[in-house]
């Protein structure tokens, strides 16, 4: 039924419209309470549903946060354990190295001190001999003999001068010997000084290491206690590690691409250039497999050397088996690197062959000329082919960091997403509640006439009731 047909049930469309409007308003007014209840129930249900969903998301976020916290703390604990273990190993090395040399140093110090003591004793100053002639001179001087006394005294004087000269010579000689002894003590002093300096350095190193260990242990304890500060530090460190390792892995991927380019063409000589597996050339897949095998060997090598700890099984192997594994993986890598160098050389040969053939087919003789410096690029390609597999070995280190930090970063991203989702759900829940209220007001908007009448009637009824109560009270009074 169209709008125009609705307006034709009376001869006057305006009257028809007015009647229809009155009927509609009346119907809406009569259904107002029910409609309001329906709107409120619907809005309330939607709001509650959204709030429940928000609570559920918050709960999931809290669980994820707790898990992330555990992961972070576990990773931090493990990392600190490794750091402390390494520091202890360094202290042990220092102590072992110094203690191994200690008996020898002690013996040398004792010998030096003994020599110094002996020399010191020898260098003790001998008192000059007491003059033996003084008393004799006094006696001779008191003799009453005129000329004989002077002669005797003259002889005594001569003898005394001679004795004095001899005594002075002896004294100088003794002093010279003492000085020689003192000079001989100087290297011993220097030896003692050096030995003590070395001891001082070692002790300082150990003290420094012990302070570092103390600091790490404090951080370790903070992690074990699950302090928020430690968690915050670990979280930010994890994000930094994630980006750095991602950057290094991107560089490694570029290296892999270069490696792939070096060996893909000659691989076509080995497995054929026209065979496909799916949409990919078999030669390309084979080249990629070789590179992946090299990377895997590098991972195993790093694991065997205990530089990375991606595979606990390898770390737990006995030292003997680990050493064997190191040798085997290194030999395989060496073999792969040699193969790659050969393939890189083959690539150059094939390239030249193809260029020569194409030049011949094009009738271009100038292109067939061989550059005399071409060996440089050939050598460079071979060198790259040999070095790149070994360079890719070190991918294991950023890979391990990336894998460990990825868990945390993914957890943090998950938490952020869940937080945003919870916020959106809560906003939508509140919005639904307010929309319900708005819908009720909008429903009432066309009913302003009947509602106004209803309000006036209620006021009148209220006023009437109040007047009756006053009259009754007056009558009673």
């Amino acid at each position, binding site marked *: 039924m169209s709008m125009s047909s609705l307006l034709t049930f009376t001869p006057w469309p305006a009257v028809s419209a007015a009647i229809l409007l009155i009927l509609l308003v009346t119907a809406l007014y009569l259904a107002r309470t029910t409609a309001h209840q329906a709107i409120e129930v619907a809005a309330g249900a939607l709001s509650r549903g959204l709030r429940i969903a928000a609570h559920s998301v918050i709960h999931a976020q809290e669980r994820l946060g707790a898990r992330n916290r555990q992961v972070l703390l576990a990773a931090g604990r493990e990392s600190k354990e490794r750091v402390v273990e390494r520091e202890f190993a360094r202290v042990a090395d220092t102590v072992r190295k110094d203690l191994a040399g200690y008996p020898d140093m002690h013996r040398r110090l004792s010998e030096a001190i003994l020599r110094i003591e002996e020399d010191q004793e020898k260098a003790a100053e001998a008192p000059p001999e007491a003059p033996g002639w003084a008393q004799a001179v006094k006696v001779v001087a008191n003799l009453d003999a005129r000329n004989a006394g002077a002669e005797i005294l003259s002889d005594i004087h001569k003898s005394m001068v001679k004795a004095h000269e001899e005594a002075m010579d002896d004294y100088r000689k003794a002093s010279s010997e003492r000085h020689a002894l003192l000079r001989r003590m100087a290297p011993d002093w220097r030896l003692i000084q050096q030995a003590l300096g070395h001891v001082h350095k070692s002790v300082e190193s150990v003290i420094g290491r012990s302070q570092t260990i103390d600091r790490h242990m404090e951080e370790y304890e903070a992690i074990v206690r699950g302090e928020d500060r430690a968690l915050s530090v670990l979280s930010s460190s994890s994000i930094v590690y994630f980006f750095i390792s991602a950057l290094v892995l991107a560089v490694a991927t570029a290296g892999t691409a270069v490696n792939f380019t070096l060996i893909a*063409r000659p691989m*076509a*000589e*080995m*497995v*054929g*250039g*026209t*065979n*496909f*597996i799916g949409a990919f050339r*078999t030669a390309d*897949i*084979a080249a990629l*497999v*070789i590179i*992946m*095998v090299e990377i*895997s*060997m590098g991972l*195993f090598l790093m694991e065997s050397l205990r530089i990375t700890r991606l595979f606990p099984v390898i770390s737990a192997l006995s030292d003997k088996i680990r050493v064997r594994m190191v040798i*085997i*993986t290194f030999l*395989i890598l060496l073999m792969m690197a040699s193969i790659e160098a050969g393939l890189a050389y083959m690539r150059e040969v*094939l390239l030249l*062959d*193809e260029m*020569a*053939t*194409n030049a*011949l*087919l*094009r*009738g271009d003789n100038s292109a067939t000329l061989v550059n005399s410096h071409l060996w440089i690029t050939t050598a460079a390609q071979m060198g790259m082919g040999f070095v790149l597999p070994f360079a890719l070995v070190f991918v294991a280190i950023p890979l391990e960091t990336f894998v460990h930090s990825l868990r945390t970063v993914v957890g943090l991203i998950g938490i952020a997403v869940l937080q945003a989702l919870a916020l959106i759900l809560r906003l939508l829940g509140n919005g639904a509640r307010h929309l319900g209220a708005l819908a009720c007001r909008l429903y009432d908007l066309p009913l302003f006439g009947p509602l106004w009448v209803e309000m006036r009637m209620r006021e009148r009824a209220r006023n009437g009731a109040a007047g009756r109560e006053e009259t009754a009270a007056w009558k009673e009074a």
Partner: protein
Amino acid sequence: MTRTLLLLLAAALGLPACAPPQARSTGVYLLVDTSGSYNRQVTKAEQITLYALTRLQSADSIAVARIDTGSFTEKDIIAKATFDDRPSTANAQKRAFASRVEKFIDQSPPAPYTDITGGLLQAIEFLNEKRSAHKEILILSDMKEELAKGYVRDIPLDFKGFDVVALNVTKLRSDNFDPRQYLGRLDEWRARVEKGGGHWRVINDLDHLEGLL
């Protein structure tokens, strides 16, 4: 683990058997008109052959055959090759092929008649046998068929999956008097190829063969 990886490598290298090389290969058959009216143009066959050789890869096939009095025979195939999987061997094959074609051009005798249909039949047979994914027949001719007495060539040709390219279609003296003959000849061949389910093209400028192959 190492052993497993090596096994995977071996499996990857052994898988080529699963993917036949013909599935993506190209087959080219060049028909060279050696009739008296076109014999002077035969030298251009070398240019086209060399161009085709630069475009073809390993596992592709090529054959060069002459059009003479009776062309539906393997004897008219001057040189044919299917390039090896290994690029170095394929390059050697290309050089040898180019040498054979060059030798033929130097010694090509003129033919009294022009059996183009017979040559096309031979080309279809050759390329179908090679099971190439993309099949192309190149015809270096003025497209004027002249059959000797007794040769029946009024037979339908199946060109499904074929690209037929007429190259350097020269105008005959009579075409100059009445160009409708030339246009009619080309239209006739177009209709014949398209009726057989093929795709027809004409390239007269041999300096611009970029669209070919």
